[in-house]
């Protein structure tokens, strides 16, 4: 990634606000999306992620601020001449046209000859794995096939940005996972900036280079998947992305370089500045620990770092994983932790005593 610094900004939001009557749907969005990036807008329904996507496509006017695509302000630029194409949530495959007529829909003004256009359509269909489907009626396609047609129809126009509005939400789990991988491959192959809207945190983590987590019309955090998961900026983000255990803590000293805390159940520890998330002080200082950063130590194992003792309250067996709720003395709520079921590792019963290994490096502090 040596040239990543040279990547140009493809999309720029400058203090974008959107009102629907009295409803403030977008509340000051500032963000940039780089060229060639797989970017996701992630959030619960009603957070404004689809509205934000539609401001890029030109289907939604903004109340104030600016949206720039490739450095150009898109104010008063209608949807049909923006360098973006969209895969709609419903796919919007025209029912009165065949597959190839759908894919070639946007080529009417293309100066190429009829044969060349037909070849382009065939290539686009081949790219999405629908070779030979051109003559089929659109209504005879399955959900997954419709989505591929929608992709081919958008990509054939070689947009600067491809917008995907919850494209996988209508598919079943298997199909969805398969399409996730295919979309990532496709994005690498064509090199176009992809912007995905999703409410599925797993999908966002799997597919994206960077993710903007949105709540109530604002971006709560914009980061790469790992940072988002390991260093969530607020308890809300932490809770939305995966599972996190929260425990109250007391701040003993905060020198800026290190922060000394005393957390319920875990005792004293010192944290480096990147582990401290400031600005989320609601409910007092709180530490967060992901379930997989806690390990049950079986006989003979020693902790890499620190150890605590607790009682197993609940066991949930998932086949490949076992989830435990373990109560720690001094902690108000049991800790959720997950263990991979590797051969030879026993599954503990309820009421068993457990020795937990953990590391202060995995802790985040919200204050």
């Amino acid at each position, binding site marked *: 990634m040596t040239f990543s610094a040279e990547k140009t900004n493809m999309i720029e939001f400058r203090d974008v606000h959107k009102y629907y009557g009295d409803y403030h749907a977008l509340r000051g969005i500032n963000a940039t999306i780089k060229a060639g990036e797989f970017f996701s807008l992630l959030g619960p329904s009603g957070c404004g992620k689809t509205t934000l996507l539609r401001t890029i496509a*030109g289907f939604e006017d903004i109340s104030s601020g600016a949206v720039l695509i490739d450095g150009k302000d898109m104010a008063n630029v209608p949807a049909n001449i923006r360098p973006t194409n969209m895969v709609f949530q419903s796919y*919007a495959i*025209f*029912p009165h046209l065949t597959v190839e007529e759908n894919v070639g829909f*946007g080529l*009417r003004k293309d100066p190429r000859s009829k044969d060349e256009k037909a070849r382009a359509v065939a290539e686009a269909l081949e790219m999405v794995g629908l070779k030979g489907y051109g003559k089929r*009626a659109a*209504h005879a396609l399955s959900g997954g096939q419709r989505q591929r047609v929608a992709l081919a129809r958008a990509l054939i126009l070689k947009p600067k940005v491809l917008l995907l509005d919850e494209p996988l939400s209508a598919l079943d789990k298997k199909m969805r996972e398969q399409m996730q991988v295919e979309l990532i491959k496709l994005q690498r192959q064509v090199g176009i900036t992809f912007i995905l809207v999703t409410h599925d945190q797993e999908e966002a983590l799997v597919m994206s280079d960077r993710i903007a987590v949105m709540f109530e019309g604002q971006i709560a955090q914009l980061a790469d998947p790992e940072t988002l998961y390991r260093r969530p900026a607020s308890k809300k983000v932490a809770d939305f992305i995966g599972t996190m255990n929260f425990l109250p803590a007391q701040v003993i000293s905060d020198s800026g370089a290190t922060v000394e805390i005393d957390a319920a159940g875990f005792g004293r520890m010192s944290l480096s500045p990147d582990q401290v998330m400031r600005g989320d002080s609601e409910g007092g200082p709180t530490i967060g620990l992901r379930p997989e950063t806690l390990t049950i130590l079986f006989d003979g194992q020693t902790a890499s770092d620190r150890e605590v003792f607790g009682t197993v309250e609940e066991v949930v067996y998932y086949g490949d994983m076992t989830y435990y709720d373990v109560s720690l003395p001094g902690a108000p709520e049991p800790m959720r932790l997950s263990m991979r079921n590797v051969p030879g590792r026993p599954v503990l019963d309820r009421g068993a005593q457990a020795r937990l290994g953990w590391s202060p490096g995995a802790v985040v502090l919200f204050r």
Partner: protein
Amino acid sequence: MNRGSSSGRFRNTEAANGLMMVSPTAIYAVLLLAAPLIAVVLYSLMVDSKVGLSAGLTFDNYIKVWTGRIDQALMLRSLTVSAMVTLVTVALAYPVAYFVSFHVRPERKSMWIFLITIPFWTSYLIRVFLWKVILGYNGVINSGLMNLGIIDEPLTVINYSLGSMIMTLAHAYAAFAILPIFVSLEKIDRSFLEAGQDLGESKLMTFFRVTLPLSMPGVIAAVLIVFIPTIGDYVTPELIGGGKLPMIANRIEAIMLKQNDKALGSAIAMTAMLIVAAVAVVFLLLNRRFLKGQSK
């Protein structure tokens, strides 16, 4: 319980239930539609003389109708008038339906549809009379223009003309054209229109490439609903045309009642019906083409 189980089973099948439910209507339809139709077909094959109908089973009546200059001319006029009426009605109804479907807030749509049907609360005959009052020799327009001094004597173009007949009929069938078009426009997923624009087409081109083709089933329904009754319209040529521009229905009336030639009248009626049927079949085939892609 076991005895007669086969008939019991039949009574319980869905098909039997369906037949039971439609049977009153079916009997009604057979008695009032099929029976008279068969009678007309039989009449048209007979010979009507001063003595009465005689069972001849001959095609003479049809030959007379198909070769008769008057019948040909009136049939042609009927076709022209109803084609014009259909064209005018559907062309005017489409923008209204489009406006209500696309530009009226969803909670107001049913009120708009309700308002559109208001003129149809009065009878067809009264509405035709009102057009006569408006367009007539001493009608609202003529006397108004004369009082304003714009014209010296009543305009005759606006009464007793094909134009005024078309205007009257187009108004009479407006709601019947608006409703099916409205329904077909309502069914169009709005994301299709966004997709059209997203793929580079202007709003106007999106209308021609997406909205219009997707609303064709409604347009074709409107065409049939307007075309079929207007071709046999009797009242408007009589009142608005002043009897000077008779259509095929007036001809049938004259032959059947004034000349008392039931056989010839029936042959004209059958001919008109066959022509309407042929036109309807063409449109139904067109409709099938457009409906093909819209099972979902």
